[in-house]
């Protein structure tokens, strides 16, 4: 009789422990991704509808970027792109829509020069979320404005904002090391 009570007590204790520990570890895991990816983690969870799926997706992104051979830009290329950026920014006053298109193109060119695959936007955003997690939301926001701009729906103020978003990423892409590597 006594043994049965003991077994029940132990099982109950284990259940209580499990119920306490699992959410804590889950929370810790979630915090870890939050710290690593910032708002991009919430964006991915919202997109995929599940934390586990989002975490797997982000792990996959890290593996993808680690497999790439990302190179820093040589000084002369960096200067060339900076000059191009200044020209785009000057163009804004005359042709804001065209300047936003050029800024987007320039980001792609720099990414390509650094050996990121640039086939589609989602892939680019995924890779940026690994190398520059703080800036991927800017890149997505700029993309939204660029889409509006395609149908001539974007206001000049929105386009100006898009240029500022693009530039934050552009400047980081020109620097020698990705943000995530610098932190290590």
């Amino acid at each position, binding site marked *: 009789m006594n043994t049965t009570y003991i077994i029940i007590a132990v099982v109950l204790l284990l259940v209580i422990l499990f119920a306490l520990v699992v959410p804590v570890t889950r929370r810790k895991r979630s915090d870890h991704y939050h710290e690593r990816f910032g708002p991009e983690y919430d964006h991915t969870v919202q997109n995929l509808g599940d934390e586990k799926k989002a975490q797997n997706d982000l792990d996959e992104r890290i593996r993808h970027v680690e497999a790439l051979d990302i190179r820093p830009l040589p000084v002369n290329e960096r200067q060339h792109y900076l000059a191009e950026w200044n020209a785009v920014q000057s163009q804004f006053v005359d042709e804001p829509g*065209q300047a936003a298109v050029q800024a987007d193109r320039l980001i792609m060119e720099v990414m390509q020069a650094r050996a990121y695959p640039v086939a589609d936007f989602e892939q680019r955003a995924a890779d940026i979320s690994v190398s520059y997690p703080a800036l991927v939301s800017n890149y997505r926001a700029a993309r939204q404005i660029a889409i509006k701009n395609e149908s001539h729906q974007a206001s000049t103020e929105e386009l100006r904002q898009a240029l500022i978003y693009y530039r934050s990423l552009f400047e980081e892409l020109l620097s020698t090391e990705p943000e995530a590597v610098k932190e290590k």
Partner: protein
Amino acid sequence: MDKQYDEQYFEERYTTSINDGAVDPSSYEPVTNQVPLEPPVVQHVPVSANNGSSPALLDSQSSDQFRRRWSDIQGKFVDDPRTAVQQADSLVSEVIDQLTQMFAKEHAHWRASGIRAVMSLRKICVWPCSITVPFSIAW
């Protein structure tokens, strides 16, 4: 300021600037080129007041400097539109001031040497007459 100086000054100030302003008609690009056709290649033709049809008012050093400052201001617009517009406004005022000062100087110069200038211009006019008139009297 002697006559020779006046003529030289006149020549330098106006003849050269007018020549500078002369434009080869073949170098004209119609403004319609601004509209990109298929494929959308951006061909940006800045439309400026001085597109070669009028003489340059400022010397090339000043106008280059103003142009540089202008493009700096234009580049700043994205970050701070308000300041960029304020700076553009002061730059335009500065250009106007410089032009006003230049015209005032020119005006003073021509007022001071006006009589001599008129005399020298008159001489040019009178010279053919001085040849023909004695003939007419003799006739």
